[in-house]
């Protein structure tokens, strides 16, 4: 089987064939929201609480009652999603879905198909998807 063509669009974005991409970016994580996590507590700043509980810092990018990564309000006592912009970045794999998809209705678009810690791993996975497409 022939290898799909790899086209570099930027240092962080490559197209593998016509319908698969790999792109470097932050990883989504989840955590339990609390007052201390965003505002600190009696003994620690918010950044110190974040380092202890999340092993990263949010640097004010997320706030209580604002939106989390998924567009849901961040509420104390509930899980929220965030992008770890300050942590290790990964390589995301995307496949172009040419048909409209629903829930909610969307036009054809690139949809995420997982992530890998290295570009080489992501490229291998992307090539498999491209070969099967």
């Amino acid at each position, binding site marked *: 089987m022939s290898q799909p063509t790899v086209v570099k*669009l*930027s240092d*962080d*974005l490559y197209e593998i064939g016509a319908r698969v*991409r790999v*792109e*470097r*970016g*932050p*990883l*989504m994580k989840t955590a339990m929201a609390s007052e201390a996590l965003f505002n600190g507590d009696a003994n620690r700043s918010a950044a110190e609480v974040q380092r202890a509980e999340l092993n990263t810092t949010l640097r004010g*990018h997320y706030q209580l009652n*604002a*939106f*989390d*990564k*998924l*567009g849901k309000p961040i509420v104390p006592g509930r899980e929220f999603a965030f*992008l770890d912009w300050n942590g290790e970045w990964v390589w*995301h794999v*995307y496949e172009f879905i040419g048909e409209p998809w629903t829930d*909610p*209705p*969307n*036009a054809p*678009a*690139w*949809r*995420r198909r997982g992530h890998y810690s290295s570009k080489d791993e992501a490229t291998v996975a992307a090539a498999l998807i491209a070969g099967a497409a």
Partner: protein
Amino acid sequence: MVFLNDRVLDNGLTVLDTEVNRMDICSAEPATYTEATSTYTKGNKTSPSVGAPADASPNGRKVTVAAITDGSVTATDTVTHYGLSDTGNSRLLAANSLASSQGVTNGNTWASAAFDIRIPDAA
């Protein structure tokens, strides 16, 4: 903490001034250029106006993204985030949440007030 001349901050912010040529409104926070311009986009505005770096309050430097009145909505959904991208180099340059969520309808236009992007002084 080290002192940083405004020129150091400005050289970062100038990238937004000179390279952003597309703003997307998104249904989730985009992690990449692909997500901002395709996976999560529900509308966009090409060639948004981003000003030159200026003094920010209470400190640091900022650029201002000018108000938009004629963005195109490309899908019906609720948007909560935006992304600013450089399409020529396929780069997502900035992303953040909107002040409030907004339902949008495919085929309509969208608008936003001007907003700032700030780099604070070194603490």
